[in-house]
């Protein structure tokens, strides 16, 4: 499989197939990031499309020296998500966040029995609700670390904050999420 950096170089030379490969490779990751942040399947779809439109326009500004393509892509996604969060803050205050059990929860990886799928779907909904009760700073730190699997250094690059702040946000976010889920009756594993 060709590395992301090579694909980016091919894209910059105008090869559509390379861009196609990049999109197929990263759509799921970006969609997940958007979904875990917004909790809304339709918004996540629109935001994912917006992210790739922005990446397509600004691909020339990507510099491999400053980190991997995934980190850069996550950084672009995160900035758009924060913009979106600020833009829609007023809407969220007037409408309930939990009036939608999104069908996206049912679409997790499906090589399981129906029982396992149902349990995984339920857990996914509960974790999503728990995440929505965290402040955006803590939420994004937990999502990047525990759902996107980024390491502390990559999160530091994405968020553009000092290492100590990253550690503190991840720590507070995890403790807060554990307390929220405990209040919701989710038993720790």
């Amino acid at each position: 499989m060709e590395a992301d950096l090579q694909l980016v170089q091919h894209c910059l030379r105008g090869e559509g197939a390379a861009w196609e490969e990049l999109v197929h490779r990263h759509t799921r990751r970006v969609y997940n990031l958007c979904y875990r942040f917004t909790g809304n399947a339709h918004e996540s779809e629109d935001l994912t499309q917006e992210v790739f439109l922005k990446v397509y326009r600004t691909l020339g500004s990507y510099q491999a020296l400053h980190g991997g393509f995934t980190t850069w892509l996550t950084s672009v996604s995160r900035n758009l998500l924060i913009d979106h969060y600020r833009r829609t803050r007023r809407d969220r205050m007037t409408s309930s966040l939990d009036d939608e059990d999104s069908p996206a929860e049912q679409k997790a990886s499906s090589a399981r029995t129906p029982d396992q799928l149902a349990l995984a779907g339920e857990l996914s909904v509960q974790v999503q609700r728990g995440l929505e009760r965290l402040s955006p700073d803590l939420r994004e730190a937990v999502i990047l670390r525990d759902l996107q699997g980024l390491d502390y250094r990559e999160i530091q690059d994405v968020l553009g904050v000092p290492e100590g702040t990253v550690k503190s946000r991840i720590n507070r976010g995890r403790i807060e999420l554990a307390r929220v889920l405990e209040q919701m009756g989710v038993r720790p594993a």
Partner: protein
Amino acid sequence: MNWNCEQTEARLSEYLDRLLPAAEHDALDVHAKQCARCAGLVRTVRGTLARVHQLDMLEAPPQLAYNILDATLGRRSSQGGAWRSWLRPLEMVWQPRFALGVATVALTLALVLPLTGFQAGSFTLSDLHPVSLYRTADRKINLAYARSVKFINDLRVVYEIQSRLGGSSRPAGPAEGEQTPPQPKPGDPQRQRNRADETNPHPIIIASAWSGLTERSNR
């Protein structure tokens, strides 16, 4: 090394991610063994993270990547783009869940069809004609009826043999509260009835036959 509850709370994630220096890691371990509150916190957060890490990545909607490509590269008329756009509606069909559904239906049909007498080898298009379907259904129903009639008759015979064999130990007449079916006399027009007409399952006969059988088996 001294360790306190505030340090546990502040450094918990680094501890769980194994990013603490060995001395601090051990100090937190020792402290948690003596402090129920910190032990509980460690256990709860570790358990929650285990739950969160169990979550799979959600599937992105199948058409999303194509929408992005359409929005960035424009609607593609290249060969690859053309056949992909034709195959796009099939993306839903390629999901494992759909394959599981198809397998379940196939298994159900494989179990049910042989019971209905369906044979794929001898199946022709004319079998789907309404008259043919009606005849097949009629034949099956009659066959099922005849089998049940035969079963009841056999049961009656067993009961009669049973009652004659046990005649020495039991009074010849019907027991109290027991009824026997009316026996047609010779020459009675009823005797000329069709065999199938005799086969009304008499619940009392069946019940008494059953009790006779169980009595015998208990002995």
